[in-house]
């Protein structure tokens, strides 16, 4: 995580870095604080969704123009930030997702995981009426509207796919850009073989429920 902080700083020192420590209980908070970034330490583990929303709430409270979510384990390369941020800066999208598959195939993963990712991509593409290749990617950026939406409402466990659909349902614009991802430097994926079934079932059920929710008007800029 310290490496990611240094990389972001090296890329552009103007970025405000917020580290969300999701009740890890280890020295994550101290390490991050020693580097002089904002650190939000959750009192207990909320899971990815709850932790992510904390970040968006921070961004909302502090009136950020953009927010990028980036994993602490090093698989998201800060060098790709210009690619991710360009559509937001040009006003082409409200949420930009860094896709591992949209461009050159550099990402290796297991067969079952690729099947799952593909299944989600097809389902969400159908709901969103646009071609998407990687809805589970956690490397994404939002503008003010996206921040406002996610601060107000964010799905809980395994949130990425649902968050993508949420954006569409709120009539915000979604864009996927190809990014290269690296092998994670520390930690491991939260998706184990046993959990994948729960993951796939839960997400598909949630998407099914979304179909029956009314489309909401987009949130206005204040």
């Amino acid at each position: 995580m310290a490496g990611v902080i240094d990389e972001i700083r090296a890329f552009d020192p103007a970025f405000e870095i917020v580290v969300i420590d999701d009740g890890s209980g280890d020295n994550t908070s101290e390490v991050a604080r020693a580097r002089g970034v904002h650190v939000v330490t959750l009192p207990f583990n909320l899971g990815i969704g709850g932790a992510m929303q904390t970040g968006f709430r921070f961004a909302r409270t502090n009136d950020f123009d953009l927010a990028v979510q980036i994993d602490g384990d090093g698989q998201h390369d800060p060098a790709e930030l210009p690619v991710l941020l360009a559509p937001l800066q040009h006003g082409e999208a409200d949420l930009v997702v860094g896709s591992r598959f949209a461009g050159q195939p550099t990402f290796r993963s297991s067969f079952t995981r690729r099947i799952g990712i593909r299944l989600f991509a097809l389902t969400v593409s159908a709901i969103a009426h646009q071609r998407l290749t990687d809805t589970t990617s956690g490397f994404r950026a939002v503008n003010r509207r996206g921040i406002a939406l996610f601060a107000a409402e964010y799905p809980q466990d395994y949130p990425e796919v649902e968050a993508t659909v949420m954006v569409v349902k709120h009539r915000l614009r979604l864009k996927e850009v190809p990014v290269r991802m690296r092998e994670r430097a520390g930690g491991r994926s939260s998706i184990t073989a046993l959990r994948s079934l729960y993951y796939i079932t839960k997400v598909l059920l949630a998407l099914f429920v979304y179909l029956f929710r009314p489309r909401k008007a987009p949130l206005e800029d204040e």
Partner: protein
Amino acid sequence: MTPLRVSIIGAIAAFIMLGVIFELIRRRHLRERYALIWVVTGVALLTLALWRQSLNTLAGWAGVKTYPPSVFFAAILFFVLVLVLHFSIVLSRLTDQNVTLAQKLALLETRLREREQADSGADGRSLT
């Protein structure tokens, strides 16, 4: 008709249950809305035990001919299912509220810590 002995044992059990419920309410271990559900349940069980024609009568209404007590089992099962569903709803709401509280607390802590650091940096000592 319910055998006399069954009726007596049932009534005693219902009385004990009502007593426990009353004690829980007195010690404020039960919130009012749940207290009401359980008092009504206790009274219903007591009525079923004391009114010895109850099961036959209820079975008659429901059209059960072979085994009247099955009405009782079905009713209890349904009641428990509804109650468990209700608790799932309550639990979901509590979880959501808990998440929001944890987030707000953590964000406030961060804000406080950063304010204090800024203050101690400005005048050389912390506010606390």
